[in-house]
């Protein structure tokens, strides 16, 4: 046995000459770039998004997003539908904030046809839009916390979101995809219990807001994870078309509810929160999170004002202004609203028909996602997940 081993030893190659430590030149050491595939089936991509990250060690050199895994041909479908038939498809784009999307579409067609709405309808629309904004921000804040490693706030957020969904269920029977806001009206009047439920929700949500702030926003571990990464300067944000919390996080005071008021938003008092760089750099992930937290509070303020002013004794039929025949005159419109994610625009071309000739959507998540490569270059791979979470994309809206 020993002989065999001995012979083997002899056939082994001569050991490589070892370079003494003082002769190593670190600058000449070469590293390989590596392409890491993230998704499409990955919880932290918030849906079916595929990212190809080019890494140098742990550093992200470039990110290339690949879309289309949830492409459902919204624009092609809507050319084959009549105007009101498009609304259920609109729901399925931004499935975390369908009320916002419905309002955007209904408003675009109403602006084309010059429809005046009863005041009660406007109040209900704004009430539900603000509730929806809170529900959407709750998901955004919760999942963002989860991306950074905090699990508990997620459960608190979803518990509160449930209350909003119950309000919607009581009103129109659907919890997620409503088909509630119609061109010229609403599908159902408010259930008598709803205003009371809203009051209870506001009270409860204020407590949750405080709780989430304590648990998540000012948690040292979370701040360390979120501050100073994914910095988006204001000029890049404007040039890149960013909107919503992404733009406001960079310190730009821009909210369509104020800057281009629609519906009855000009009647309510509310602030436009902007990022200030309070935990690090202006426009980092923490700022975007902070803007969402503040907007949550502002939406609660708006809801309280609506509950005060709501015309409860108004018995107007909510479908009073719904036109018998929806057929806008030939022309085109670009109409926009502020959703939970940013500026949602509809470009509708009408050729004097009951079907739209062309519907193109400017979806805020699509545009915000296009800035991901710019804001994630030069950070660590682990930070890329946090940065993507702070953008708050909904893949249904990105792919349409």
């Amino acid at each position, binding site marked *: 046995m020993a002989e065999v081993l001995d012979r083997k030893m002899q056939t082994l190659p001569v050991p490589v000459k070892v370079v003494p430590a003082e002769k190593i030149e670190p600058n000449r050491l070469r590293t390989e770039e590596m392409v890491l595939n993230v998704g499409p089936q990955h919880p932290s991509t918030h849906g079916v998004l595929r990212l190809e990250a080019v890494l140098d060690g742990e550093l992200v050199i470039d990110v290339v997003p690949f879309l*289309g895994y949830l*492409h459902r041909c919204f*624009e092609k479908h809507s050319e084959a539908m009549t105007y009101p038939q498009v609304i259920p498809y609109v729901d399925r784009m931004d499935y975390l904030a369908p009320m916002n999307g419905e309002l955007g579409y209904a408003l675009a067609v109403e602006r084309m046809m010059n429809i005046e709405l009863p005041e009660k309808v406007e109040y209900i629309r704004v009430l539900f839009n603000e509730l929806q904004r809170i529900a959407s921000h709750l998901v955004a804040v919760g999942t963002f916390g989860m991306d950074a490693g905090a699990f508990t706030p997620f459960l608190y957020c979803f518990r509160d979101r449930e209350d909003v969904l119950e309000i919607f269920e009581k009103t129109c029977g659907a919890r997620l995809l409503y088909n509630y806001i119609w061109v010229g009206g609403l599908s159902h009047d408010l259930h008598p219990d709803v205003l009371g439920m809203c009051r209870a929700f506001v009270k409860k949500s204020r407590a949750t807001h405080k709780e989430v702030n304590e648990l998540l926003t000012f948690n040292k571990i979370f701040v360390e994870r979120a501050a100073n990464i994914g910095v988006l300067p204001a000029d890049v944000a404007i040039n890149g*078309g960013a909107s919503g919390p992404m733009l406001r996080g960079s310190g730009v005071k821009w909210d369509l509810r104020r*800057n281009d008021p629609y519906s009855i938003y000009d009647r309510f008092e509310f602030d436009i929160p902007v990022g200030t760089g309070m935990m690090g750099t202006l426009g980092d992930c923490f700022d975007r999170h902070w803007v969402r937290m503040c907007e949550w509070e502002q939406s609660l303020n708006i809801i309280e004002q609506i509950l005060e002013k709501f015309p409860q004794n108004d018995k107007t039929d909510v479908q009073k202004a719904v036109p018998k025949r929806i057929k806008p005159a030939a*022309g085109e419109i670009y109409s926009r609203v502020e959703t939970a994610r940013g500026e949602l*625009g509809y470009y509708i*071309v009408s050729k004097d028909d009951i079907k739209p000739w062309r519907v193109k959507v*400017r979806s805020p998540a699509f545009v915000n996602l296009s800035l991901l490569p710019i804001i994630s270059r030069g950070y660590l791979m682990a930070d890329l997940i946090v940065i993507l979470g702070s953008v708050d994309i909904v893949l249904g809206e990105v792919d349409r």
Partner: protein
Amino acid sequence: MTNTEIYDKLKSAFGEKIGEWHEQTGTEYMKRMSSYADVADSGYIRDVCLYLRDEPELGFDSLLLLSSLDNGDKTLSVTYHLESREKKQFIALKVTVPENNAVVPSVTDVWSHANWHEREAWDMMGIKFLGHPDMRRILLDEDWIGHPLRKEYKHPDFYRGMKVPY
């Protein structure tokens, strides 16, 4: 400035390159946001956009939407909705190109926002953007044949050997 004044200013700067003004009838909102100017020479769209962005009086710092459109008469259009946040001005521009030679200069280097919208216009409508840094399909697969949002598009019976069910 109202958008008609901006149109006059464009007209004096570019002359014949700028075509007709299409005023939208209907509501005031439509007039303000959606009335558009034709850019008669599609090759000049980037220059017009640069002018709109850099002229201090105009200052169109953001592109709201770049959208493609099949006019149904063998021509395709690209519409640009622009906004100046500081001065609260709007204007829309439209270029029209023939279907069999749909090439438009890219405005990605003017507003980086245009990047993905131009890719989408190529993917869905088959309009090529000259000077775009990354002219690939965005929503459909690389091997997809045809551009679905064109009006005469017929969906294929088979895709990679699989029957398309409807």
